[in-house]
């Protein structure tokens, strides 16, 4: 496996912040090759966040699924992606480029902020006040105003449910696959991944789990015909625990 690029434990504002720093640390440009390269680092970094706040983890996982798409295409150039998936990949690259540009510009803002201030005129002290309410300064208007203020108090934003829908994580799938294979020694990819029943992103995650196991020499696979089903078989009986 490529030397695991050790990312300093700095605090990342979000997935794009993490992804950009992984790419910039390797002095790469933003394109699908560099994204494929940093996918492993990204996933291992996300896995290192133990009790991860739910709303944040969803953002990280969403980006992870696009990265997995890019990575799977780099492992299997023949893999045909839908127009939406192509757009997702292009969209991620666009977002990252804008983010990178904003990060550059924010260094100017950081340098300037608080260095040379402009001050407004101070409040004139001991001003002779003139009691002058306006026509709306009355008890009923003030009550309706405070009621309005209370109504507009910001409520905790309830997390958009769709964001947190359980995307089966790569690790869980690998463990499931390893477990299944240990018992049945031979199995077809189609019924393991629930091809045709399961959502596409989960099929892809299963596919990548299978590729990881092939890469780590745990299973070997055979595909008789083009687009045909894939037979999976364990290499040795004692399958190592995938840490």
């Amino acid at each position, binding site marked *: 496996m490529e030397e695991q690029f050790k990312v300093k434990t700095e605090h990342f504002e979000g997935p794009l912040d993490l992804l950009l720093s992984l790419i910039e640390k390797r002095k790469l440009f933003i394109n699908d090759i560099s994204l494929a390269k940093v996918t492993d680092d990204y996933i291992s970094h996300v896995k290192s966040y133990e009790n991860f706040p739910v709303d944040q983890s969803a953002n990280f996982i969403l980006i992870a699924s696009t990265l997995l798409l890019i990575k799977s295409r780099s492992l299997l150039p023949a893999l045909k992606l839908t127009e939406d998936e192509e757009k997702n990949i292009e969209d991620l690259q666009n977002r990252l480029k804008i983010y990178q540009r904003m990060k550059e510009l924010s260094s100017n803002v950081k340098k300037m902020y608080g260095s040379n201030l402009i001050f407004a005129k101070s*409040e004139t002290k001991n001003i002779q006040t*003139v009691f002058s309410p306006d026509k709306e300064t009355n008890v009923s208007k*003030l*009550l309706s105003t405070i009621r309005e203020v*209370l109504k507009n108090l910001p409520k905790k934003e309830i997390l958009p449910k769709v964001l947190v829908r359980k995307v089966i994580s790569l690790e869980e799938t690998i463990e499931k696959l390893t477990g299944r294979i240990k018992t049945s020694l031979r199995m077809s990819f189609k019924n393991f991944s629930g091809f045709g029943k399961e959502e596409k992103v989960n099929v892809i995650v299963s596919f990548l789990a299978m590729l990881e196991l092939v890469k780590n020499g745990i299973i070997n696979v055979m595909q008789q015909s083009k687009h045909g089903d894939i037979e999976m078989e364990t290499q040795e009986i004692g399958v190592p625990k995938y840490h």
Partner: protein
Amino acid sequence: MDLDIKIESILFFKGEPVAIKKLAQILNVSEPEISDALKVLEEKLQDRGVCLMQKDDSVMLGTTPSSSELIESIIKEDLNKDLGKAGLETLSIILYRGPIRRSEIDYIRGVNSQFVLRHLLIRGLIEKEIDAKDQRVILYKPTFELMSYLGIKKLEELPEFSEVRKEIENFNAINKEDDETQENKSEQTLSEN
């Protein structure tokens, strides 16, 4: 940067009389040097909207005399125009939650209230009070004139006073915790991985 320019910045910022001695102290120069610089400043302010005013040994910047009529009309207009949404909102918070510090008003309104408060002060609707617990903190509260104008002797006489006050207190309580957890959360992930 020449002395007269520095003096102009100080006097503009202060917006009130400043002793020449004080200027010498701040700028670390002798008083005669200040006086010379003041002459230069006076010269430079010839065709400007502000002018240098001197009384005894204090100086200040003021609006140039030829604008005084204009300024009078603005003062009158400022006092009679509507308070507007921001003014009424801030005033209602001070009535139902006062005495209250500015940071809490900003928190409830979700916006900075610095200029609105100045305006309510000039109109004699609210006044400042030093927080007994912490001298540096300024609290804002309704003026007696306002309360008598509204026909109440105590704030508790305002309609739905206790319900509203409780609702605001709950909001502050939940959110203060949230803000703390939000801040600790970001620290937490830092120390965690």
